[in-house]
């Protein structure tokens, strides 16, 4: 009898309590808390496993001093949110104007498909996050570790949702889609959880993405 842990929200599937071996659950079974697909679950680690330090390839981050228009836009919208928090409405509005200007300069109609997304997501999970986590722990940067932890979990749910989409193109058809306005977690289901499974913000910050008419 084993226990399986959801790496996104921490939900534990205990085979002993549930009475059904994890392997025998149907392929479309998802985490009852956060909606992660079955294949992201991990066998609960023993203490011995967790002591092992994860090997990180010697990876050099590129120097990205030159910001792209898309990056300028994201920074501007981030600063706009920062102003909103301080109730600086005029400043927020100007930052949002800048964000949409640089966004309009960025958008090009290239042909992309979901495989391009999965490729990038795997790159993030396999290299970028591990590298950043190693550096942030070395430098004892708790803030950076916080954003890495949230972002990595959200990236995992995106991967899980894309694999669900790959199996069933209509998996969101009869239900709702929510995005956490704080961390970006996506929840597909009828009723959003009481708190965001990743950043734990109360559910009123999880906003529904409407399906266009």
């Amino acid at each position, binding site marked *: 009898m084993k226990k399986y842990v959801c790496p996104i929200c921490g939900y534990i599937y205990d085979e002993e309590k549930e009475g059904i071996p994890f392997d025998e659950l149907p392929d479309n079974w998802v985490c009852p808390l956060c909606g992660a697909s079955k294949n992201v679950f991990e066998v609960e680690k023993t203490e011995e496993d967790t002591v092992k330090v994860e090997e990180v390839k010697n990876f050099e981050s590129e120097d990205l001093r030159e910001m792209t228009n*898309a990056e300028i836009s994201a920074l501007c919208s981030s600063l706009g949110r920062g102003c909103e928090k301080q*109730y600086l409405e005029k400043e927020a509005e100007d930052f949002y104007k800048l964000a949409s200007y640089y966004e309009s300069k960025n958008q090009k109609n290239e042909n992309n498909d979901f495989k391009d997304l999965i490729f990038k997501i795997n790159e993030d999970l396999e290299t970028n996050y591990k590298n950043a986590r190693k550096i942030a722990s070395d430098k004892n940067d708790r803030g950076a570790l916080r954003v890495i932890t949230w*972002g990595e979990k959200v990236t995992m749910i995106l991967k899980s949702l894309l694999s669900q989409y790959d199996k069933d193109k209509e998996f969101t058809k009869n239900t709702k889609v929510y995005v956490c306005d704080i961390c970006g977690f996506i929840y597909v289901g009828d009723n959003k959880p009481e708190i965001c499974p990743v950043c734990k913000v109360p559910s009123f910050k999880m906003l529904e993405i409407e399906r266009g008419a």
Partner: protein
Amino acid sequence: MSKVRAVRNLRLCSKDCLCLYVCPTGATDTETGQIDFSKCIGCGACANACPSKAISMVPYDYPIQQSKDETVIKSLNSIIRSKVEQEKIAYNIYCKSDDKIVKQFTKALMKANRLMAEDLYREAGYMLPQSKNTKEFLENLLKINDSNIPKDEIKKLLELLKFNEI
């Protein structure tokens, strides 16, 4: 002690209106629901009296941005680049599709990636709009050779924001 002013979180406000009784200047009584900053003297009486904890005192001057290690910033920037590219990929799929389900799904993906990029920037040296980093970022935007950039907005921001480290 640095000067503070009262702000009201409208979502928490339960309209008990005790702030109106205790405010010595009438700053809390406005038609918009927000506190009139020009009248607020920062005494904190409203925040103390508020039974729903909807009022908090925010400073006029913020502490300077904590210094960040260059290698941490570089590693976060790599993730940011990936996230904005994913936002764009999702946008491209969104544009090319007529399927409502695909549109809804890619919209969620765009939003998730934007939010992650924004959050990463906060930890990569841009936590505070009033920081030296933000000031330099805005000044550098003005230097980019582009006749269409919203110069007025950038200049207005450089004027309005109370930068705390010159």
